[in-house]
């Protein structure tokens, strides 16, 4: 039993790490219109691995074994489809796959280490095309590049498998229709295209970080995968951009605090009440290294600022030692480059800490009667917090109630209800 558990764990881990790369190589071979063919080969290889390893034990190099198996299965498919129109062999390089004289060398060339890295990144850029909705982007990335099953993706999004299947279908249709040929963008468009990739990675990370449902394993998996994707961008020189380092740093600073954010019952713990001894100093240190690397060049992305703010929190020994004036400066810069209402509200909270409730109220009132912002639960939660500090409990309760109505998140609702209860008692 222990033996087969060990194999399950290794296979799971290996699969999360490698399946996306294998899919990327196979998509290059079969064409993006045959992405299902690629996924099937990878799935088959995994099943073979599980069956063979349970029976004969683990091979010395499981990764190489898995790749070899996928490669052989790909050869089988090419043999079977050599004369069919399913696979487009018109590209001169692919044409060599159809002859026994050149099949093996051509196939081996597709599976060279550097090539695999590039193909994986190319696939990421293809998945994050602006024409594909963000939701569909992340769904597809989790399924095809991170080796999640449809069921696991559904669990991480708290939605049905059916919904996930529909989203996947739409993305695959897009690939088929537009005959997408994944490639890493050229240097003059890489910054713009990387932006959408980073956006997807960060959304995915937040999905794992903020989805406060009970399924801790899936959440951590999603977070880990988001960080893995970002690291893979950093592993290739062409995509080592400052904003990529910045996002990596930011995710490290968040991830370091992951375990202290929730109670064992899944309730949110405020930053001020978190047990800071639980924060992972090793991840904070590597985050710092990434942040230093993010400082070259003249790019200042929102990730830079968010990372800088998160870093300030990470290095404060106690909540009361937090360098609020530094953080306020970062928020000022932040608001200069983006008009995100959440950033604005967070800035108000910093003013509350630094200059007290009167100043905070003044700050938040500068956007009063803004229809959009009034629909954010965070706007009302912030006002509630400010009114408590002003000891205007009735106003505080009214805003907290609005916030409860506006948020979908169960733990958030519970958290706000507890606050109201405390005021009323």
């Amino acid at each position: 039993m222990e033996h087969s558990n060990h194999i399950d764990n290794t296979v799971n881990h290996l699969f999360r790490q490698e399946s996306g790369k294998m899919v990327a190589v196979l998509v290059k071979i079969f064409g993006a219109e045959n992405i299902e063919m690629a996924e099937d080969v990878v799935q088959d290889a995994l099943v073979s691995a599980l069956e063979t390893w349970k029976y004969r034990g683990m091979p010395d190099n499981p990764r190489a074994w898995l790749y070899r198996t996928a490669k052989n299965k790909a050869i089988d498919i090419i043999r079977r489809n050599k004369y069919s129109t399913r696979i487009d062999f018109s590209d001169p390089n692919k044409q060599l796959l159809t002859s026994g004289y050149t099949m093996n060398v051509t196939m081996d060339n597709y599976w060279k280490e550097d090539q695999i890295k590039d193909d994986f990144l190319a696939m990421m850029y293809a998945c994050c095309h602006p024409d594909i909705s963000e939701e569909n982007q992340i769904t597809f990335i989790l399924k095809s590049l991170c080796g999640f099953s449809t069921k696991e993706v559904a669990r991480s999004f708290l939605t049905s498998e059916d919904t996930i299947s529909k989203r996947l279908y739409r993305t695959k249709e897009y690939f088929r229709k537009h005959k997408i040929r994944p490639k890493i963008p050229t240097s003059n468009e890489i910054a713009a295209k990387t932006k959408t990739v980073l956006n997807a990675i960060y959304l995915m990370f937040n999905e794992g970080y903020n989805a406060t449902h009970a399924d801790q394993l899936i959440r951590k998996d999603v977070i880990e995968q988001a960080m893995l994707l970002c690291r893979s961008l950093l592993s290739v020189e062409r995509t080592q951009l400052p904003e990529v380092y910045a996002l990596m740093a930011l995710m490290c600073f968040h991830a370091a605090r992951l375990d202290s954010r929730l109670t064992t019952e899944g309730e949110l713990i405020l930053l001020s009440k978190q047990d800071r001894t639980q924060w992972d100093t090793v991840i904070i240190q590597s985050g710092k290294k990434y942040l230093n690397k993010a400082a070259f060049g003249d790019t200042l992305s929102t990730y830079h600022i968010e990372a800088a703010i998160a870093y300030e929190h990470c290095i404060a020994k106690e909540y009361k030692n937090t360098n609020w004036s530094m953080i306020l400066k970062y928020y000022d810069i932040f608001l200069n480059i983006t008009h995100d209402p959440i950033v604005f509200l967070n800035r108000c909270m910093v003013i509350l800490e630094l200059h007290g409730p009167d100043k905070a109220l003044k700050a938040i009132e500068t956007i009063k009667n803004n229809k959009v912002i009034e629909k954010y639960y965070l706007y009302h939660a912030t006002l509630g917090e400010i009114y408590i500090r002003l000891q205007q409990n009735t106003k505080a309760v009214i805003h907290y109630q609005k916030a409860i109505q506006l948020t979908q998140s169960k733990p958030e609702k519970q958290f706000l209800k507890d606050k109201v209860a405390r005021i009323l008692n």
Partner: protein
Amino acid sequence: MKEFLYLIRGGQEKYEKNSPDEMQKHMEHWQEWMGGLAQAGQLVGGQPLMTEGKTLSEGGAKIIDRPLAEGKELVGGYLLIKADSLDHASEIAKGCPSFEYGCTVEVREISPM
């Protein structure tokens, strides 16, 4: 451009004596040569053949358990390529890696049925 068939004949004995290293090198030569043809849009296709075979003759009544031609004349594989003329096709055939193990290449033009 017209289409031509290369019948690659013989060389079996020498090929079988190749060391794995020589084999690898040889395969890379094929890759290079055929890759060049493919890039130039001149490769149609082709395959190496297994040595074993059967031959039917006399109206199908006689079947022998080997290819008709053996040894130096055994067809070991074929390629279909595009070229302007028989001479052009023959010129291209001179680069065929099969000569490394003593093959003969017969160049034939495809005819309409």
